[in-house]
């Protein structure tokens, strides 16, 4: 639902050049961008490196059942007496990785379709646009439920659901960018010079789309994490003993009145992770607009 396709318009005014500006110094003087990046590095680091950290075993029943935070179990324990600290840490990894994989798929497919739409006949373009519009405004959870009913609950269902939710926006962004770039002088001259389509796409289209697509990716990953959180919360996504932040929140729901930390902590961490990606995305976009 976070749509950044409109950013295409002001950016179109900038001078054409075939070598894209790099994203080396992402957020000059933007504290929000740095905050997001810091959070992101921290969470991704914990999520991926947690087996190496001295957090404990996420699968061993070692403590009392459903206990709040204590000195021994910093985030408390779950209904099987497992420490929530390592469970939350591994859940961060699962949630981010699932969302990232799904968004990678959505990006590849979305950019391909977007470029096709830009180069195809007007009728095909219209068809793609219309279908994308409908998919775009179809309720997120409904898509997720349909997918998990067809595939059965589990990681694949979560990934497919996130792809389904993030794909339409990616197609829109890619199409808008492709249409803009195709009109630029150097592309036109390349066409006139008789360059092959594949060469133009590789040499001009993709490099010039990169920034817009990367910005959209960060938004899509954050949206994907929210979607994964929702469907795993509802028990349609990641299944036990595997866990994700949404699945932890879902399990904690039952114990809300006795150990509120069981729901609130993974929920809070999910919020932080989404915030991190959104801050980075917002900063990248703000910077793009300034130029």
């Amino acid at each position: 639902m976070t749509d950044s396709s409109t950013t295409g318009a002001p950016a179109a005014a900038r001078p054409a050049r075939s070598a894209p500006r790099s994203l080396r110094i992402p957020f000059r003087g933007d504290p929000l961008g740095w905050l997001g990046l810091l959070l992101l590095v921290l969470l991704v680091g914990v999520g991926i490196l947690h087996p190496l950290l001295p957090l404990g075993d996420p699968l061993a029943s070692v403590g009392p059942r459903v206990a709040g935070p204590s000195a021994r179990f910093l985030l408390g324990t779950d209904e099987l007496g497992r420490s929530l600290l390592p469970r939350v840490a591994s859940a961060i990894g699962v949630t981010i990785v699932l969302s990232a994989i799904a968004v990678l798929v959505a990006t590849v497919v979305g950019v391909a379709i977007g470029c096709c739409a830009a180069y195809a006949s007007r009728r095909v373009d219209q068809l793609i646009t219309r279908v994308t519009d409908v998919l775009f405004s179809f309720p997120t959870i409904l898509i997720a439920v349909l997918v998990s009913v067809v595939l059965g609950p589990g990681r694949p269902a979560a990934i497919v659901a996130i792809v389904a939710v993030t794909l339409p926006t990616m197609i829109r962004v890619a199409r808008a960018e492709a249409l803009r770039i195709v009109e630029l002088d150097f592309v036109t001259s390349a066409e006139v010079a008789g360059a092959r389509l594949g060469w133009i796409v590789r040499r001009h289209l993709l490099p010039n789309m990169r920034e817009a697509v990367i910005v959209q990716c960060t938004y899509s990953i954050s949206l994907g994490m929210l979607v994964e959180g929702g469907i795993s919360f509802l028990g349609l996504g990641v299944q036990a003993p595997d866990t994700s932040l949404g699945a932890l929140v879902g399990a904690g729901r039952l114990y809300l009145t006795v150990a509120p930390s069981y729901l609130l902590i993974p929920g809070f961490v999910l919020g932080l992770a989404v915030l991190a990606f959104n801050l980075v995305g917002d900063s990248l976009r703000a910077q793009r607009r300034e130029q």
Partner: protein
Amino acid sequence: MLRALLTGGAGIAVPGVLSGCARRAEVGGGIGPATAVPGGTVIWGKSAEAIALDPPKSNLGSSWDLIQVIYDPLVELDDNLNVVPALAQSWQTPSPTEYVFSLRPDAVFSHGRPLTADDVVETFRRHLDPENPTSFASFIGGPSTTVSKLDDRTVRFRLAAPSRTFLSALSAASAVILPMKEIDAGGLDPTTEMLGTGPFLVQSHEQDQRWVLVRNPHAWRSPAADRLVIPIMPDVNSRIAALGNGSIDIADFDQPDAPLLLSSIPNLAVRVQQCTDFFVLTLNACGATPFADPRVRQAIACGIDREKIRRVALADAGEVTGVVSAAFPGAIPSSLRRDPDRARSLLAEAGHPNLRFEIIYGATAGDTVGGAITQIIQQSLAEIGVTVVATQLEEGVLNQRAWVSVPAQMDATVTYYAAFGGPLMAMRNWSPQLAPFAVGFQQKDPHLTELITQAWQAEGGVVTEAARRAAEAIEQQANTIPLVTKPVVVAYRSDRVTAKISGLDGNVDPMRHVEALSRTHVGGR
């Protein structure tokens, strides 16, 4: 920094803001004396819809509880699982193979026709049909048992051999007496309509929504309340919220954690009901699995930490059990002991030092116990080098793979067995000859069937020598490993209703004393 943020930020900020607000648990306590008031409506939030309504064919506990509200059996269980009169006011046993029941004179079906001996005879003829006996029939001797009418109020059963399961089996939901005259005449379809002699009759039903029951005007055991409304509430949080805000009066829970979850609701009476039913780990010894080798099965039996299952998955609410459910007074203790060293050497001997297998388990909306048990099994088997893949399946798929396919399409499953009112009744599940549903995963072992039959026929107390031999053989076979009992939690609003909840149950009948359910008036006046 992250830790401090997490523990401090989320946990403390909210109560801080709300420290001015009173906690709900502190408000409303201290009710006056409660007195039962006859009449009115009582609302029971039921955890699952009843979908198998024809008693002889019904095999779902979630239907049995409702069936037992509408119908009555010949005999029933008291709170210590002793058999006591119900529709039969008394019975004689002229010989060990002969039972003669005298029916109550005041038993009348809810449409006004009195119960006759023909209804009883025809009900059991349906069970004992030699062409197509019901699954229940094996408890009362199978098709070789004959049932006949001596006069309008007397019925005689003749068995081919003495049976220790016969009398308690008659108390089961499957054995309730149907209005056979109407059914045989074709005017009543027991799969969709319910017409019994119980305290309530069905006024209306919306599938997956609610049942509305009203007082049976002809009931021999008249209920205190006029109406019993039964909304179907599969979501455990909904039932908890509804008990809290008073939109339901009484509810049943499968979660052993329910007392903890309900502890914040004032004026709530919470009763843990011990049940004879027990959880088992079923290994598939019939398919192409490593469990065809008895050593691998025994290794699993030695590797499982059943005490940990009881402590963690059951929240201390149930008991570790053997083949005879530990809920029965004087049950045979299980001979299985945790022995990781023996488990490892058995696995090495069998050539499976790094065994890996899948446990499938079902998951209805709120029931998390099967999953919890599976995960504890996974943990304890990891210690003997066995990798367990836990897979949660939707009930229909699980049903097909575990109980319908022959051989079963699974390595193993965690489920529970109904153990009914007789200590030895559940034993039949270890014999595919006696329990046909087990044919897909349970090894055919004529010797074991013979031991079980002997135990069923032996005279004496609960623990006969024959029963002990059968129990030991079953645990040695380790094809289906008994784990822990399956308690039920019943909670009701003590400021709104009075209820009598049995502490021990054998027939999946949490509402056994449904006629005593009544509204209360609280406070002086």
